[in-house]
């Protein structure tokens, strides 16, 4: 019956979900690229050329990569503060700093994977110059 605000839900899950920010950026980048290509090829272009689409998607990719780098940098800072990185050991696993350090580490790793995945996804747009 303790009257509480939504804080535990917000902060708890919120903090946990922060590690998925980079993959979420990947997901949006993916869906938008796919949707844009589908609409462009089906509705907007008659000849199947893709120059305008390429320009827009390269812009989108740049934005996505910047966002992912930002996630990685923030994660890196948190990770370092956790005292995990310096000697490669895990001092005192059971405290708040080590938990933060772990979440930071996970965000860095996920940012790296998302970065690569975004680049993978944009490659076909650059390499396949037509809809058909």
């Amino acid at each position, binding site marked *: *019956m303790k009257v509480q605000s939504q804080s*535990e839900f917000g902060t708890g899950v919120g903090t946990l979900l922060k590690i998925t920010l980079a*993959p979420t950026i990947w997901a949006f980048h993916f869906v938008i690229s796919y949707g844009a290509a589908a609409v462009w090829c089906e509705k907007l272009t008659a000849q199947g050329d893709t120059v305008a689409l390429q320009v827009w998607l390269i812009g989108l990719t740049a934005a996505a990569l910047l966002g992912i780098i930002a996630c990685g940098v923030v994660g890196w800072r948190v990770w370092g503060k956790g005292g995990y990185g310096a000697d490669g050991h895990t001092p005192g696993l059971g405290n708040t700093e080590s938990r933060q350090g772990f979440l930071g580490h*996970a965000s860095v790793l996920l940012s790296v994977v998302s970065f690569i*995945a975004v680049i993978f996804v944009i490659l*076909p747009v650059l390499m396949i110059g037509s809809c*058909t």
Partner: protein
Amino acid sequence: MGSVLFDSGPRGGWFMYPPLSTMDEGVGADIWLLGLSFIEVASIAAAVELIVGVLKCRSPRMRVNLMPLYAWYVLVVGGMILFAFPPLIAGDFLFEMEKSFDWPFFDPTRGGDPMLWQHLFWIFGHPEVYIIFLPSIAIAAMVVPTVAQRPIVGYSWIVLSAVGVGFLSFGLWVHHMFTTGLPNISLGFFSAASEAVVIPTGIQIFVFAATLMVGKVKKSLPMLWIAGALAIFTLGGLTGVMLAIAPFNWAVLDTYFVVAHLHYTLFGGMIFPVMAGIYYFYPFFRKGKMMSETLGRLSFWLIFVGFNAAFLPMHYTGMMGMPRRVYTYGESMDWGWLNMLSTVASFVIAAGFVVFVFDLLRPKRDFDGPKRNPWNAGTLEWSHDVPGESWGVRTIPFITSRYPLWQQPQLVERMDAGRFYLGDTEFGHRETLVTSVLDAKPQHIQRVTGPAYITMLAAGFTGGAFIFPTFHIYVPAIICGAFAIVCVLYWLWTSTAQIPEEPMGDVGLDLRLPRYASGSDAPGWWAVWITMLGDATAFASLVFGFFFYWTASDNFPPQGALHANGAMVVAFAVLLALSWAATRVARGVHRGGNVGLGRLVMAASVLLTLAGGFAVYGAVSHLSPTSHVYPALICGLAVWLGAHLLLGVIGQGYCLARSLAGRMTPLYDADLHNVTLLWHFIALQSLVTAAVIGLLPGWMS
């Protein structure tokens, strides 16, 4: 499965592509749908349970960075289920409407499009293969540290791997649709994402290898099966990479190459790890008994050799061009001997399973050595003892390490002595602790329901509500549905959110905690959130259908078509928004202590919902859904909304009744919080539905 014996198995393959499957007159497709419906309900329920369990019911102080890796895997799987199954639910809904009532969602002659089914099916289908794979490989993540007798090397890397796979696996679905004529660029996206998913998938295998290399490995049966799993899965993953390259896929699509791939991934990614799990956990379930080392080895080698002899040649038969799903072929095809090899080898696999089943079932003598933790594992489940006692653990320990049985001395002794949390129950109820998400701080005492028949009855009636319509028997189905609702309500009424005898309770170690939680502290509230997130995904898939028809056809909405009744659309949007507002206001007023006014507003919300429901009906009642996919989709959305309004009005009425019966008070108002949360989602769906059927058609044409 039984349908096969009565010649009513699904005849359209496991992915049931229309129009073949919708035109098939037999009952096979319906039975297949029935099975899928059960899986959908069960999976979503499992997702709720897994997510809430992992996030809210950990041992005190077991921070997220200390959870067993198994918990990370199932957390990710729970999340994946919430986004993978709902599109299939939406697809099934459309499919069944077409099959039973001839609404032409997938019928091109009336504006439908079979491609929508393929999209919805595979948006589910590919994540599903990882939903199968992750919990199985999670067993490996538990077995490997035990075998190496040391903590896992690179805990965060496993988390990366699980979360990364969870996300990327949603960008692969079109690799099952490479030959459907989508633009090449679109194929490229999915090909690229398929190659990218290999990175996180591969990482966990390296982590396992690293742990084994730096540890002192004790050879054991579970490890043997895990080793076999990794070997086989790696091969299956490699053929997956090949298949994801579009031109190669065009060549081998629907050949035995695919059959080889899927068996390598499923045997390596599921069967073998699960076998390892059975050998590993056998002495956990049957204390003092162990499966036979000799028979285990025999079974392993029979299955391993048999498997490779049966499925390795299929890569080659596939390359030679042998199609899937044929039962005969000409002699001149040259692949007869390869198939003969596969056939013989399949009997070897079967022999291996016979040995395994025999070993599983035969009576066994007690083994020597420690019976409680025979593998000397480090994770908490191995503290379990005491068969015959009516508790899982004597007390709930606090956890400050990843492998508590190795790293927290005297833990088990203290647990047994009752010197941790909840050693006793004050009022004789079943209870557990609910803890916070990040750091597992104890938050309140949660009363847990016990075994009951009413839940079985509810399951039985729910089953009836699905089984009868399969055979086009509708009246008993509706009766079953009604009884299912009654059973669930009865269970909710008698066993959940009960007002405690005392507001606070003593949990031991000088800690006093509340005995009741409402709002975002209550696990029930989380369950509503999670369920409705899945529900919203299904709804989004239906709305996606609207856009899909628009992009895929030049004539959607068709010219001169009848539209939804605009005035009625506005009416239901307004009424349902008001109903939502009333529910929200009732919660505040009631919490503030003005119970009378609160009840009045709750009653008003019930009436508003009913009126809104009639308006929904009025908005679409003049359309004829069998004539074209456009009215069909509008009616489909209306049916979907109507079903949710039924749920919503039951919730509102339930709160009113609880208040009148004195089971809900301003202090103890979890029910009202949960129903309000439900209504946030319902209101959102109402407004989106109104926009989609009322506004979009105008913009689109």
